[in-house]
């Protein structure tokens, strides 16, 4: 069966593309929501030694089915080590031990700051009240780098987030993160259903560096709330393979 004949949803496309960015042997802090499926898929595909770390206390989880939440019992049962939540944040996240923070978002901006708190600028009277910070601020501060997974739309990809829940590259001032004493490099990539945005240059601005097969630069620009810059060399991401899709669907079954 050739890849052209495969059908998949935007979410499947996104999940498979994100999974490919997780290198084997990496330690990966798996955030709540979409990152879970991508991280687990990567572990089953090209990255069997991917170390999955969950804020619920599971370190090195190897679940044999997709965990239903970041606190699913299968995580503790299959983990190399289980620790308390205070220990997780103090001994494991805070010192910068984890290579990749793998996060979702409600809004992300040009300089890769993340909002999961409120939509609307008035905190006390928001348009939409979101769940809040969870583990994200310190994951984004301390992990080696952060990869964000998010479906692309002009509502979610904004010039400036309504609320900075987790810091990317601030206002784009070069050296912004260092000036705050943040340890990790911050958001490096945003994987979307249209392509990949990469933090680039001293400002860390997110620019378009790859598109999924069949997606145009125009589509990506329309789905972005700022004047999206495009890399000189634009990669085309190969579509999900039959094996990837089969594995993902088996995981979710």
């Amino acid at each position, binding site marked *: 069966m050739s890849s052209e004949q495969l059908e998949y949803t935007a979410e499947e496309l996104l999940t498979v593309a994100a999974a490919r960015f997780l290198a084997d042997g990496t330690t990966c802090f798996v955030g*709540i929501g979409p990152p879970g499926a991508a991280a687990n898929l990567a572990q089953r595909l090209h990255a069997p030694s991917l170390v999955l770390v969950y*804020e*619920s*206390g*599971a370190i090195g989880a190897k679940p044999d089915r997709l965990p*239903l*939440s*970041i*606190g*699913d*019992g299968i*995580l*503790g*049962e299959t983990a190399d080590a*289980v620790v*308390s*939540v*205070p220990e*997780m*944040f*103090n001994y494991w*996240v*805070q010192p910068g031990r984890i290579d990749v923070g793998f996060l979702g978002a409600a809004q992300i901006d040009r300089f890769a700051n993340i909002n999961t*708190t409120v939509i609307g600028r008035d*905190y006390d*009277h*928001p348009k939409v*009240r979101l*769940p*809040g*910070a*969870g*583990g*994200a*601020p*310190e994951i984004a*501060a*301390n992990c080696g780098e952060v990869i964000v997974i998010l479906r692309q739309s002009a509502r979610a990809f904004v010039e400036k987030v309504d*609320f*900075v*829940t*987790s*810091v990317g590259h*601030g206002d784009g001032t070069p050296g*912004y*993160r260092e000036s*705050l*004493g*943040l*340890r990790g490099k911050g958001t490096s990539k945003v994987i979307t259903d249209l392509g990949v945005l990469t933090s680039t240059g001293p400002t860390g601005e997110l620019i378009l560096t790859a598109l999924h097969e069949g997606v145009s630069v125009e589509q990506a620009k329309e789905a972005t709330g700022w004047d999206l810059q495009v890399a000189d060399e634009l990669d085309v991401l190969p579509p999900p393979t039959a094996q990837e899709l089969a594995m993902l669907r088996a995981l979710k079954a």
Partner: protein
Amino acid sequence: MTATITTLPQAIADLVHDGDTIALEGFTHLIPVAAGQEIIRQGRRDLTLVRMTPDIVYDQMIGAGCASKLVFSWGGNPGVGSLHRLRDAVQQGWPAPLEIEEHSHAGMANRYAASAAGMPFAVMRGYVGTDLPKHTKTIGQVTCPFTGEVLTAVPNLGLDVAIIHAQRADRHGNVQMWGLTGVQKEAVLGAKRSLVTVEEIVDELEPMPNQVVLPGWVVTAIAPVPRGAVPSYAQGYYDRDNAAYRAWDTVAKDRDSFTTWLNEELLAGTTRAGSTTLTGTTGVVQ
């Protein structure tokens, strides 16, 4: 000096008072749902509810009017969406205005650790560059006396009562839980009084991998409440009822359907000592 083994209604009557600051903790696993519903039944008011991950039992307590304040770091119905009763209370003041105090998980975890350690604050790296300190007064700064580095400080939670659910206790009141145990030890050690609901009381606590044991002398009361964490899960006893979480979304969506649920399902359930109403939407189970 050791924990009293009692019934859930008695324990709530004895330990939880109007105006208290209380934490019902559980990180996806072992959420003390039955205890929260008993607090609703007993009509407590003006509580400050503390929890890293308020989910549907806090939505129920807020919707029932038990709370005047929520201290939290992630409030949602995991995998489903928003907590509609929480949102209605914050945005519309229904059924009572709800103040919120918002932190990150790392901050809340450190506040629990400071509470367990009897310290007025804990020091951490966190919140820097985020908008949280603009809105949350309980995020401060402290300077390292050795390096001059400025770090973040978060205060003791000041808990009157901690309530958790555990797999089992022995007859001496020693509590055992295993699997993912979150901040439950810190919650109990950090509160003036504590209640642990348990799946069962056994003669002997057989050691389990990744166990946390709380000696009976640091626990105030234990109440056997089988299935007391439903619809969350209790490792070794039952799985998470994911359908109940999804169903809660419909019930909580508007005030009428919530009020119907509250009156006809939760409050209409006959409360017997040691039993409890367990479910969100699928009727009263005793």
